[in-house]
Structures are given as C-alpha cells and as structure tokens.
C-alpha cells in the first residue's frame, strides 16, 4: 500500500513486491522509497504522469536498472541478484513495439524460442492467428497495433507468471488499444497470471484492471483495489468538503471554470466508505487519479479569478 493508501498485508500472495525501493539518476529521484505489492492473479494499473517513475519501476523489476536502495521481488525472486531465474518468471512488453525490422513475425517467434527455453511458440502463434497477423509478414511492415500485439504474443508465449507491460497502449489508436486489452484480459484470466500495466490513459485501464497504483514524483500515492479507490473518494468544490474527509488535491474541473478538490473519506478502509448509504455513490477513476496527481504537483497555479 502506498503512503496514503494504508498498509497491505497481502505480501505472502504477492507476485511482485517492492520494499523501500529508491532509484536516482544523478540528482533526479525517479523512485523514492517505493513500497508496492501486486497480488498474484491481479491486473494492476500503474498510473502516473510522465516522469512519475512508472518505467523506472518496471525496468528495476526487469533488472535493467539497479536500485540505489530497497529491493524488489518478482514471484519471490530478486531480479538484480538472480536475474535469469527472475526473468524466467516475467513476460515483458516494452514501451515502443520492439521488433527486428528485417525479421518476419515467425522469425521473432523462432528467436524467442531460441532465447527462452520455456517459450511456447504454438501458443503465441495461435494468438497471432486469431488476430489475423500473417506469420510471414516482415515486422517492419506491421501496423503499430500489430507490432504491439506481436510484443504481447511474445510475452504471453513465455507463459510467465508475471507480465510487466510498460505503456504498451501509448502509441495505439483506440481500436488497437481495445483489442490489446482484450487479448491481455483473456490471457491473464485463462492462465491465472499477474499483470502490471503501466499507462497514463486512465480510461483504458479502467475496464481492464482490478487494482490501481498511482505513482507521482517517485512515490506511490495510492495502491488499492479499483473499486475501493472509487468508493473511498469524493470530488467536490473546495468549499464543501464531506464530513471528516481529508483533502487529497485540487485541480481544474471539467470546463475549466471551477477548482475541484478530491477528498478521501473518513473510515475509508471500511465497507461503505462514508457510512451514509447502502449503495454508496462513487467517484470516477479519472477524478481519483487527477486528485492524486494534483497532490503530487501542488495546487499552485490552480487559483481562478
């Protein structure tokens, strides 16, 4: 659980755990004592603005970056100390579709099979067949969506327990995004694997994920189930706070006419959240995310005349 999200006790069943994870690039702090737990079998959205540390977190999990402090475990294995053992348990989809320009789709699967002893090429091939992606097509002639699907098929073909997806939707059109998420959902449900999906497009992950982690300024601002995030927050104007609620952050409301404030409700960790109704009203996920991102940036510049 994050700084504002309460403590998690689910580390025993967590597929990915970070403890006090810090990473600096010279003077810039990318991750600042990050504590995060991704329960096994969940699809967690890792949301945050550009520069929040999402990619760095995933790269540390892939042993591409060495943490300055703290540690991370992927399926119980520290990737920096036991890289090959950790990477056997991880399927990775990079930010931009990483394809070899001169190789065909089938060549990519052959290469994956030669590099990863447990790679299930038939499984990946079936996935690509279902999407109508020709195996003999050169990868550099694939569309952006097809390239992303190829990356996902390779990651799924590893039959890894944990999937780390670093903003795979960023460069895709809405239809390609929808298809990508559907393939991911089907695979994760069928295999019972765990996915950490990094994105800054909240609407895309809203339907796909069951858990939300918000990163801002290198810190975890919120880490909880998606439903809880909606239920335990309220968005009002700054002058009318819900009783006993704590202000999270203020930002310009829709239309840009009014400064809105996100509030965390009192007793937010209990069922019913505000304890006032049997069918509690909810806040949109986008508002929750915006509130926490605004908290990370401060409210300077949001005052209206």
């Amino acid at each position, binding site marked *: 659980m994050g700084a504002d999200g309460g403590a998690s006790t689910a580390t025993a069943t967590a597929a990915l755990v970070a403890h006090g994870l810090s990473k600096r690039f010279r003077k810039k702090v990318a991750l600042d004592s990050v504590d995060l737990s991704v329960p096994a079998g969940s699809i967690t959205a890792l949301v945050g603005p550009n520069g929040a540390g999402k990619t760095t977190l995933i790269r540390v999990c892939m042993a591409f970056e060495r943490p300055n402090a703290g540690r991370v475990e992927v399926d119980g294995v520290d990737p920096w100390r036991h890289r090959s053992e950790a990477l*056997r348990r991880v399927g990775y989809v990079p930010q931009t579709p*990483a394809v070899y320009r001169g190789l065909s789709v089938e060549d990519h699967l052959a*290469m994956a099979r*030669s*590099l990863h002893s447990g790679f299930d090429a038939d499984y990946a091939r079936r996935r690509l067949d279902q999407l109508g992606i020709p195996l003999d097509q050169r990868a550099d002639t694939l569309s952006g969506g097809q390239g992303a699907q190829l*990356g996902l098929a390779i990651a799924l073909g590893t039959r890894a327990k944990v999937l780390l997806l670093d903003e795979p939707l960023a460069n895709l059109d809405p239809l390609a995004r929808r298809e990508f998420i559907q393939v991911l959902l089907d695979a994760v449900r069928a295999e019972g694997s765990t996915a950490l999906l990094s994105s800054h497009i909240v609407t895309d992950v809203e339907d796909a994920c069951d858990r939300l982690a918000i990163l801002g300024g290198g810190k975890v601002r919120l880490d909880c189930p998606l439903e809880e995030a909606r239920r335990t927050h309220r968005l009002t104007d700054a002058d009318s706070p819900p009783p006993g609620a704590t202000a999270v952050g203020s930002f310009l409301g829709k239309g840009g006419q009014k400064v809105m404030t996100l509030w965390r409700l009192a007793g937010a960790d209990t069922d019913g959240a505000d304890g006032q109704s049997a069918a509690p009203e909810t806040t949109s996920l986008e508002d929750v995310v915006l509130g926490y991102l605004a908290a990370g940036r401060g409210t300077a510049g949001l005052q209206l005349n």
Partner: protein
Amino acid sequence: MITRIWLTFKQHRFETLAITVVCVVLTVGALIEAYRLSSLNVPISCFNGSYEFSGLGTPTYSAGAHCQALVDSFMGLQNGLPMNLVRIMLLLAPLLAGIVLGAPLVAREIEQGTAPLSWALSGSRRRWLLGKVLAGVVLLVPLMLAVGLAAEVLEGALDPGVDTHAAFQNYLGRGSFDVFWALAAFAGTVTLGTLFGRTMPAVIVAVIVCLFVRVAWEPGMARIVLRPMAVERTQMQGQFQTFYGGGNGVVIAPIAPTPSSGPSPSGGPSPSSEPSPSSEPSPPVIGYMPYWVQTDLYSYTQVFLDGKPFYGDPYTLPGYQMQFDASGNPIYPDPSTMPNWVDYAIPGSQYWPVVALESGFLLLGSLVFGAVALLWVDRRRPY
C-alpha cells in the same frame, strides 16, 4: 544455436551480404591476378637483367629482348590498377569486415530498442551475446581464410621463385593472418559497440584504432616481442634483401642462421661479433633473388661502443667527428671509442614461429576484447 546464428545473419543481412560479396570478389580477383602473372612464365634469370644505355638510342635489356618483353609485361601487371586495387583491398578487407560486422552487433539492438526484448527473453545476456558473436565468427573465418589463401597465392606470383612461407614479404596481409586480423577487429568493434551503444561512433573509433594498430604492429612486434629471435645480419649473409636491378642481386644460399645468438637486451653481442661484411668470405652463389624480396624481418639497429651496447646519442661521442692536427693531417680516433652500428633481423627460417606468435597475440587480443564485451553487456542498460 543454428537458429540463432541464422537469425543473426538475417538480422544483419546487409552486412552479411556485403562482406560475403566483397570477400568472394576479392578472392576471385586475387586469384585472377595471380594467374595472369604466373601465366607469363617469366624465367627467374630474366629478372636479373638491367637496362643499358648507349648514347641517345633506345636502352637495351641485358638479359635479351625476349626477357625484356616478359619482364615489362610482368611489371605492367604488377603496377596496373587492378593489381593495386586488389592489393589494397587485401590489406584492408580483414579489418573492414571485422568492423562492419562487429559494430552493429550489439549497438544496433540498443539503438533500435530491440535489446530489452532479447534481454528480457534471455536470462543470460552473455549467452545471448555469445550466440551473436558465434554467428560473426562462423561468417568471418571461412571468408577470411579464402581471402588469406588467395593473398598467399598472389604473393607467390608476385615473388616468383620465393618460398612465401620462408619470407616476410607482406606476411601480415596473407594466409591465416587475415583470419586473425578480422577476428581481432570484430571482437574489438563488438566491444566498442557494447560500450557506446551506438553504431557509428563504434565504427569511427574502430577504424582509427585498427589503422593505428595495423601500422604500429610490425615495428612494435619486431622490436619488442620478436627480439629474442633476432640475429646479426652478418650471420645471415645470403638472405639479405636487395632491390631489383641493384647490382648483381643477392645470393640465396644462406649461411645457417644461429637464432640462439640473438642479442640479449642487457648484454648484446661480444666485441668479436662486430660486423665487417667486406672482410667476411663470400658465401657460395647458387642463385639469385628475382627482385626485392624481404626474406628477413627487420628488427632493430643496436649501437655498440667498446663492444658494449650504447643507448645514448652516438653523434655526441668525442671520437665521432674527425679531428685534424696542426698540419691538417687527420687524427684517427681510437676505434674502441667509435660507435658501431649493428643490424639485427629475424631470418626467414623463423617464419612459422613468428606467424604462430603474432597470431597468438591477435587471438589473445580478440579474447580479451570479447571478455570485456561479455562483462559489459551484463552490466549495461539495454537503451
């Protein structure tokens, strides 16, 4: 592993094709040029002739008109554009092939963002790199062997009557050396590509380093590493180099060199070994070198004073400049105070030991570069 080698070739198809085509064309070109020279069938004795000038008339060739025509044809081929192109390319091909294939091997993966994909799939980056390097070796070794053998054949045709395995003429640019040069350039450039993560900087630095090493290699090796193999030139009479048309050529019959008499850096030769070629009895003449042939590998010149190695500037010695008395008669200095230059060289009989030693150094360099690349690829970021 075969799949990975094949996929590496496909991934680097431009470099693979370019190197293969250039090497095949170069091999064929060198063999054709060698055939053109050999097919002239110039008798070795023809090379001993010289042009004689009498008045304003056309100079005549002392070995006869037939020889003159043959030698002119030979020289025409030897100095022709195709021959020069082939010889320059033979010199550069191993280095260029190693650089062109080695630079993008890792660097392009980092530039194009494919390294994270491969490194995420392969638990061991070292194994991943080894697979790619193996593909490079599989391509380079047979191609460079073919080029090296063609260069060997061409050298034999350029120096008719000379055993190319007992002469150091262009020895670094033929035979198995081409393979080892290519491997060293390849390993070095792979390492640079791994360090920089960029192809062009790796190529530029590799070209500069390779040219420097190639130029400095022979004098460096001869003066330092091969020094124990050097013997005084006076003990090698009959194996000296000479120039075509210069005097009567040189006798081939060697006085058996004594490698064990090579100088030690501290002691040098005894005073009795001072050279005085004019006072030595001439060895029996049994044949002539056709033209300039380097049968020995120049090593270094050592200055001796009073029979001991002298490491200062001999021109500053008091007895070096001639002194005159009041009558203008020269005052001859004490010979023991005069500096004495002694040439050392490595005889052609040491050809194979030299080849083995220098090949070993190149191979060792390749392995060291490879080890650095393997260490670094494990540490570096994939972007």
